[in-house]
């Protein structure tokens, strides 16, 4: 990028919020996605919406790209820089602006860490359910941009079910306010649903209004092991069809259980083929009744060991263990490529089998876990990016898994987004027309393709330059070059 442009950027945000040292560029070249990275030209921390707007105006005139970024835990490459780009980091916008206990809403800044919001509202007897595995680190802005789910998605839904409104700066620099505290709102197009899950391609959020609900006062957490993996899948299908909606219904296979046990040492059974982590919650005695029904379903499905958590500490340690699953798998091999295939819930047992088939057919190690109750699995390939033949086999295995998921009526990503990582599979999930519709929206909102270009969609003519691929792309940096 031209030095004069960098100077202008620096002037907009102020020198103390502008970083372009090799060290800073390298440390913003990645997010949580394996194997993808690229250096930005600079990294900035804007202080107010005028500055964000100024940056976007400048990007349109000087033709560079802007990459919004939260905590950088994304798993589809959403906040990874592209060629000729600057990263706009929102983590310092981390205040809770208002908790309205009369209307049960929270107005927050986008850089607020999800787990911190939960802690604060819970002090008031309120509840913000979306709880991605990364919730101690990831931001509300990132959650809205990815429409993140979590362990409690089955009963409580995902991020989009809790967004009442957003304030954002459009790619062309204008300010837009969508939604508000009213629970019902049908004025015009439902813009909210277009920007939720837009992965930072349609605007940069500056404020987010969230819905809160009363905190469930009772809950029971059950962990259960299975000698045969198929029994775990059948249990899930049976629980769902028994008309009970647990707040949590999570699945871990043997590989995942062993890695998690290595990390947490909470006594998971290393020999079981699979386990489920189930939670029912609510406000009265129905919680106990639901728990009893579930236990009988589990017994019928040959559960080998059923444990009900004695207290909240034990329940929390089980859930924390589950949340560490993805990262814990990296204990086996340095590169963990995690996928996000989702199928209708009744097809879960079939999908679990298909993942096993993929692992053996393509000779790769796959650990499988996920939000079983949502039909959302995270088959994770344990590999090593230095071994290119294994990486090729891993990609083939995932191609197979995606195809099977779609054949079963599912989709390629349940919660991690498309970003860079799943772009090639988008068409098979949404169809040609779907892609064209999305492109038209993007083209109107961002005519110069400056905001997070190359993510989700490839615009024509291609103007985002080479997109990040393997790590060899990072050029050498020498202070005195």
């Amino acid at each position, binding site marked *: 990028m031209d030095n004069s442009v960098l100077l202008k950027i620096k002037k907009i945000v102020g020198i103390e919020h502008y*970083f372009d*040292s*090799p*060290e*800073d560029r*390298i*440390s*913003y*070249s*990645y*997010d*949580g996605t*394996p194997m993808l990275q690229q250096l930005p030209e600079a990294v900035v*921390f804007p202080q107010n919406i005028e500055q964000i707007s100024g940056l976007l105006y400048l990007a349109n005139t000087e033709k560079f790209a802007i990459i919004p970024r939260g*905590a*950088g*835990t994304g798993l589809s490459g959403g906040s990874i820089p592209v060629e000729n780009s600057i990263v706009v*980091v929102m*983590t*310092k916008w981390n205040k809770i602006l208002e908790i309205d206990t009369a209307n049960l809403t929270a107005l927050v800044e986008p850089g607020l*860490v999800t*787990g911190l919001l939960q802690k604060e509202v819970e002090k008031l007897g309120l509840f913000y359910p979306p709880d991605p595995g*990364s919730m*101690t*680190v*990831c931001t509300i802005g990132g959650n809205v941009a990815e429409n993140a789910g979590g362990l409690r998605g089955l009963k409580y839904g995902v991020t989009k079910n809790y967004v009442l409104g957003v304030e954002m700066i459009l790619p062309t620099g204008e300010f837009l306010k969508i939604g508000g505290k009213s629970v019902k709102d049908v004025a015009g197009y439902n813009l909210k649903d277009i920007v939720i899950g837009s992965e930072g391609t349609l605007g940069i959020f500056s404020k987010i209004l969230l819905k809160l609900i009363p905190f469930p006062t009772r809950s029971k957490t059950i962990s259960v092991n299975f000698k045969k993996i198929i029994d775990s899948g059948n249990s899930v299908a049976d629980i769902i069809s028994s008309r009970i909606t647990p707040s949590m219904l999570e699945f871990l296979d043997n590989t995942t259980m062993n890695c*998690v046990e*290595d*990390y947490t040492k909470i006594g998971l059974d290393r020999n079981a083929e699979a386990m489920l982590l189930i939670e029912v919650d609510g406000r009265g005695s129905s919680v106990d009744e639901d728990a009893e029904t579930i236990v009988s379903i589990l017994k019928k499905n040959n559960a080998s060991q059923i444990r009900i958590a004695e207290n909240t500490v034990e329940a929390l340690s089980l859930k924390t263990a589950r949340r*560490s*699953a*993805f*990262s*814990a*798998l*990296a*204990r086996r091999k*340095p*590169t*963990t490529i995690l996928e996000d295939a989702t199928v209708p819930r009744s097809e879960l047992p079939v999908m679990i089998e298909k993942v096993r088939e993929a692992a053996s057919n393509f000779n790769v190690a796959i650990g499988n876990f996920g939000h079983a109750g949502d039909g959302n699995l995270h088959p994770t390939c344990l590999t*090593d*990016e*230095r071994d290119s033949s294994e990486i090729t086999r891993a990609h083939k295995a995932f191609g197979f898994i995606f195809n099977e998921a779609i054949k079963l009526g599912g989709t390629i990503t349940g919660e991690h987004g498309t970003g860079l990582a799943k772009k090639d599979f988008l068409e098979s999930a949404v169809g040609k027309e779907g892609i064209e519709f999305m492109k038209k929206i993007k083209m109107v909102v961002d005519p110069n393709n400056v905001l997070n270009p190359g993510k989700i969609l490839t615009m024509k003519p291609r103007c985002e330059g080479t997109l990040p691929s393997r790590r060899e792309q*990072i*050029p*050498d*940096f*020498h*202070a*005195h070059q």
Partner: protein
Amino acid sequence: MISSKDKALLSKYLPGDDVLTQCMHCGMCLATCPTYELTKLERSSPRGRIKLIKSVAEGKLELSNLFAEEMNFCLDCQACETACPAGVQYGKMVESARVVIEQSNIGSSKINKAIKRFLLNSVVANHSRLKLLARILYFYQNSGMRTIITKALSVFPFAKKLAEIESLSPVISKVFSSDGMEEKTLSHSKVKYKIAFSTGCIMDVAFADINFDTVEVLQKNQCEIITPKAQVCCGSLHAHNGEIEKARELAKKNLDVFSGFEYDFLVSNSAGCGAFMKEYVHLFADDPQYAQKAKLFSERVKDISEFLANIEPSDQMHPLEEKVTYHDACHLCHSQKITVEPRKVLQQIPDLKFVPLEESTWCCGSAGIYNVTRHEDAEKILERKMKNLRGTGADIVVTGNPGCIGQLKYGIKKYGLKMKVLHTVSLLKKSMDGKSDLKNLP
């Protein structure tokens, strides 16, 4: 370009590719990192630092001053290792990066490095010199000279920081434990355990009371205690500050000294020393002469709380009606993964009211010699700890490391809290003695 000298340094000291590629940059460690919390910059986070070290190792980033700055800004508190589900050995990486920095031409000036090296290698590592310096300090602290000099300094605004650092220097004990202790101390009852006791160099001169308390508590728990006169500093301060060769030299000396005695466990009351002595086994894994010795040695190292929590308490405990909270020293909770044991031991004291400390495993800013070498950063980290301590309303805060004790005492004074700081073993001793003189503690 990277000079050939730097290249040689990198390949000699930095860990191999397998250690470096273990991090899958998921970011789960970010929320636990005190330095990332301060700057919100990736380069001050564990994930960012690992990426930088990796870039240096791959020759993609030159050894730069900013690189050195970030490596030294790190507290080496290892909270990120606890948080990391992938089992990344962060401590190993940052410590080796520091070795490279110390030996290269980057980072702080040659003079600063030389002073630090002199203090670490010629004073801390040489116990008689450390004692001499400590005696001088003792005289300074107790002769009224301190008040005069501090007052005189406060006239100059620039000297405020100096005066603050000065007030961090530990209060020197009147009698050093190594002088006041026999090489063999007998048990009060039938001997069940033979204990070798590591006095720790700073503990010995600045916290001798805690050493005396430790020995007494052990005596009352059917232990016979051997305190080898010839033991030296464990080397942890050196290893954490890039002086790995000196650390190895000291470790070898200790291995030789302790192997001359027969004992069941080697007890340490300093979390930093205990953690590092447990590391000896890795330090000498490839050393044909010392590998076996180190293994035997490290296996038997126990923190005092770890040892006491796993035996039947044999002496009568007397009630202490105090409100007590516990601060987890990084080198106990993150390096040694000891969190349950000290709490268990404290709960053996009748009538004690235990109040949990919010963010108890968050570093207090002491971090070895960090509060001296990076005083301003340490002050910010201390602030958070003090806020949490105030929230407990406790009368006493208990912890298991001399550095933390010093830092907490300093913070409590600075923030005007009414709270005493005690080592776990000292509170136990008070309960065993049955006469609570807690109100008059210094």
